[in-house]
């Protein structure tokens, strides 16, 4: 019983990082921009969270600061990829190097000490007493409700049930047609790349303020890249992205349980599971069902800059 509760609780806690970053990536990719800088944005968010709570012990402020820093870096990225229309892959890789390098440089003075303030668990009255599910779902930090309920449902509604969401998807599928219909392609791309980057920054702060409450060098450890892959697997849908993130939370928590219970597998091999699992998720579904490709296809103009005068 305890084991099951523990696995579930860790699943939700660990999945939160990926869910938040993946939703940010969904926003950017739905409007046609691949942001491969998620890893770097998360690193910046993580160190911003730690540095902010070290100055003012408020986790909410730390999270907000990380959102702002993510948005600022997102604007620089959007300026390059949307305004100037530079190569998105190169700019994304560059953003990853900048974010990771800068965060590790700033982080040297915070390394090893626990975060000064963290998001505390909140017990929801009555609900947290439900056996097994209660402690896992209703005795967690408040951010989880934002990540698993408010954001996915809100983004789903925005993307698929509003006029504005239709415009967003049009910009990602066929910017020339969207432009002809009077939709401000550049503005929409700029805005949602920035918003997506803010969520990636938030995911970093979630990492240091709720999940692993301390900064260490290279602690993002590829989670940004896993989030980018999840988006592909989730067919660019926010709710699916969150569900897939939960699957990865489960893989991570199985690794934790294995280490805690001294399974006869060395810890580094358990740590490999999320990466290998991601690769399997990228390959196996497409192998198994060719139809998946059409159903879950990327926005048609993903990765392509829009030149009004050229076409």
């Amino acid at each position, binding site marked *: 019983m305890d084991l099951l509760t523990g696995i579930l609780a860790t699943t939700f806690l660990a999945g939160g990082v990926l869910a938040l970053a993946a939703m940010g990536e969904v926003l950017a990719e739905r409007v046609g921009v691949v942001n491969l800088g998620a890893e770097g944005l998360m690193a910046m968010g993580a160190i911003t969270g730690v540095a902010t709570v070290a100055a003012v012990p408020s986790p909410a402020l730390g999270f907000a600061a990380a959102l702002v820093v993510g948005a600022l870096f997102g604007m620089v990225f959007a300026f390059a990829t949307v305004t100037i229309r530079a190569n998105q892959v190169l700019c994304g890789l560059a953003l990853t190097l900048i974010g990771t*390098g800068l965060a590790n440089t700033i982080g040297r003075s915070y390394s090893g000490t626990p975060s000064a303030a963290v998001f505390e668990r909140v017990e929801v009255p009555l609900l947290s007493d439900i056996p097994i599910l209660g402690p896992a779902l209703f005795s967690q930090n408040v951010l989880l409700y934002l990540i698993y309920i408010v954001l996915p449902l809100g983004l789903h509604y925005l993307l698929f049930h509003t006029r504005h969401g239709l415009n967003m998807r049009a910009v990602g599928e066929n910017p020339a047609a969207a432009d002809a219909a009077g939709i401000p392609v550049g503005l929409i791309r700029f805005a949602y790349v920035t918003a997506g980057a803010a969520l990636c920054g938030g995911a970093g702060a979630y990492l240091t303020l709720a999940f692993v409450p301390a900064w260490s060098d290279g602690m993002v450890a590829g989670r940004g890249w896993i989030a980018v892959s999840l988006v592909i697997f989730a067919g660019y849908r926010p709710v699916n992205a969150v569900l897939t993130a939960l699957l990865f939370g489960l893989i991570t928590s199985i690794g934790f349980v294995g280490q805690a219970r001294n399974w006869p597998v060395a810890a580094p091999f358990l740590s490999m599971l999320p990466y290998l699992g991601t690769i399997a998720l990228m390959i196996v579904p497409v192998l198994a069902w060719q139809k998946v490709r059409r159903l879950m296809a990327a926005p048609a103009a993903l990765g392509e800059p829009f030149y009004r005068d050229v076409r």
Partner: protein
Amino acid sequence: MLQGLRLQRLPSVQPGIALAMRALAIAIVVLAASIALLVAGEDPLALGAQLVSATFSSTFGMEDFGLLVIPLILTGLSVAVGQQIGTWNIGAEGQFLVGAFAATAVGLFVPGPAWLILPLIIAAGALGGVVWILVPTLARAFVGVNELITTLLLNFVAALLVYYVSTGPWRDRVGMSNSSTARITVEMPEFWGLIHWGLPIAILMALAAAAILAFSRWGYEVRLSGSNPSAAAYAGIAVRRHIITVMLLSGLIAGVAGAFELAGTVHRLQGGISNNFGYLGIMVAVLARNSCVGVIFTGILMAFILNSGIILQTQGITTSAVLAMTGAILFLTAIGDELAHYRILRAGSTRA
């Protein structure tokens, strides 16, 4: 003021402008770093002079610098080769690590004379690199799975694997080290000072790759498949087969780089052996605009930047700061490449 002028976007990059943009990108980042140092109370000019003298005025400095050139040329070549057919090998870091891992296995556990073991070590490194890129290659060629992400994710797996063996089963029990294997007994022969034969071999590999791509039928087909896959397929070129061979070759080169680093420079397997060489290789390839000859020069340039970071460590600059600076150069280069598509025309010009 701008009336009478307008911009025209050309379909391809103007190479001269693209090169000038690269120089400008590096200049801007170095200037920004100098200002940051100035604000931190350092004297950037004195540091710069110290850098140049520390690198070039002593044999010791030249050796350190030269040893960095070897892996950077090779990882840059690895990325550049993959780019010939339009594939992104962001996994040179992982292939480098597994190359070093496989080389260590031979170096530690296969007895024999050096003339036999050394080629075996390099072959093992090459094989390690190929094995590590095999799954991303097949997934890309047959199912169209984005190789950029799969190759990258395997970097983390490779790092965990190397960490595991060098702190666990292959740990150096005699030398009381907890984080590296024992020293392998076979070494790359020296070429100049401490710089081993990996340097001339790396340069020869880059030249050979450039020659094969430029003059062979295979190279022509690869370049055609890279610039227009559908036209190549229509012309009867086996694009899929070329994607497979090019990606495997890219992995092989990175694996060889790992084997050279192990057998020539570090001599024992340890967690940090890859030293971001794989990621910096992306930079080397991009700066060279994916020219296989160009990576020789940009590899040297990148080695100088990385070496500067190592020398300046006492001044608070870390390899992380170098990584961030590299990213900034890459970012500005990407912008510069886009701007290099444009040319300014006077209104009414007949060349529009």
